[in-house]
């Protein structure tokens, strides 16, 4: 489901004297349906960069990223938008929503975007919120006022409410208590079982061990720093 070949990435900081920071070189990765792969490596080694490149958020300098048959590095924006709507889910560490929109709407939105009827979208969103132990009294409120752990779970609910065939998970269990962490691991396991290809960043080693088939150390893709 995910194929990455010869992928390179650097950032050029035009406003800081044109400094070029190379982040990835010749990255390779292949994730099959039903497989969960953890990206590892120390902070700054490029885990998040690689994940964001699969999401289409960062541009590639060279190489290829194929997700469900679409080459992210070459696809026009609307192809990527379609892929994100139908195929590719992403749970980031940050919740970014229109202020004042009720939580249940935030979670239902990916379903509405797929053209699912509002009633069904709402009930599926509610079921997911309930499963993630978001108190019912919060469903009608905007998540912008929630605690970090609650926001994180809203984000997860959004990412799992539609059975995306490909999932990108950035620290999905960080800042969660044991009970909710167990729920999230369960959700990931279910996604794997239904055949989703999953790439994740987990600092939580126990979780990683419990859920992942393989680990890829991105340090191997880190270019030697130019002297």
């Amino acid at each position, binding site marked *: 489901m995910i194929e990455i070949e010869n992928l390179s990435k650097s950032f050029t900081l035009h406003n800081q004297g044109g400094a070029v920071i190379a982040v990835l070189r010749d990255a390779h990765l292949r994730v099959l349906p039903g497989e969960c792969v953890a990206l590892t490596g120390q902070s700054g080694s490029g885990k998040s960069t690689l994940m964001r490149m699969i999401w289409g958020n960062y541009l590639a300098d060279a190489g290829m990223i194929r997700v469900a048959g679409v080459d992210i590095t070459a696809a026009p924006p*609307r192809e990527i*938008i379609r892929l994100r709507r139908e195929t590719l889910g992403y749970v980031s560490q940050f919740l970014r929503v229109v202020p004042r929109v009720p939580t249940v709407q935030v979670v239902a939105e990916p379903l509405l975007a797929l053209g699912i009827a509002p009633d069904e979208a709402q009930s599926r969103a509610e079921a997911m919120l309930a499963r993630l132990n978001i108190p019912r009294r919060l469903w009608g409120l905007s998540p912008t006022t929630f605690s970090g752990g609650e926001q994180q779970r809203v984000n997860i609910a959004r990412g799992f409410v539609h059975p995306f065939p490909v999932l990108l998970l950035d620290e999905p269990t960080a800042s969660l208590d044991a009970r909710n962490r167990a729920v999230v691991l369960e959700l990931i396991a279910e996604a794997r079982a239904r055949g989703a290809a999953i790439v994740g960043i987990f600092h939580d080693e126990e979780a990683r061990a419990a859920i992942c088939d393989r680990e890829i150390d991105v340090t191997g893709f880190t270019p030697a720093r130019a002297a």
Partner: protein
Amino acid sequence: MSPLLRVESLGKSYGARLGCAEVSFDLWPGEVLGIVGESGSGKSTLLGCLAGHLAADSGRILYRGRDTRAMSEPERRMLARTEWAFVHQNPRDGLRMGVSAGGNVGERLMAVGARNYGQIRAAATDWLGRVEIAATRIDDRPRQFSGGMQQRLQIARNLVTGPRLVFMDEPTGGLDVSVQARLLDLLRGLVRDMGLSVVIVTHDLAVARLLADRLMVMKDGHVIEQGLTDQVLDDPQAAYTQLLVSSVLQV
């Protein structure tokens, strides 16, 4: 499927001063294109040319395959009141302040031949509801409305004929932040439910991030960068875009 709007090498000058130049892009059904840039970057000129308010000097604007620059004025006007809509930054520019809310919403229907008062009024009532204005306000004039309500009324007035393509010029500018949020949410819902294609000009990158699928960054009349909204904002390539993004607090 083909693009709803295809723009090829569009250019417009004001005498010696450049408005915009060499602008090309495709807009597909259901897509929201944001145009960002500072004042004077040419984004409003571009929007004006696209909507037919300004005459471009060069290039082509193909709407559903037909060059709008080659259309007659009556044809363009017919498009403007049926398949297109234009939401102005200042509701006063887009509303008739001396006409009731119902009359404002009904005008486009009447302009395309609606001649049944009861049906026009029912449609106006329905649309006021969709933009969260109480039906009891239908006979009030926009003057009696708050800024946010006026803007929502302008949106209702524009969308009542079910357009395909909506041009928006800073639709949330001049509104309080909390009012902006409500309007953004409303717009997102309408865009999704009606499958609208939108060209939105804004200098507010946060608005662009929340509404636009794609972004075009303009400077000195030229498009200097375009791509997926979050890609342009999170991994800007051009020096100017990097400066623009880094100048804003937390988008």
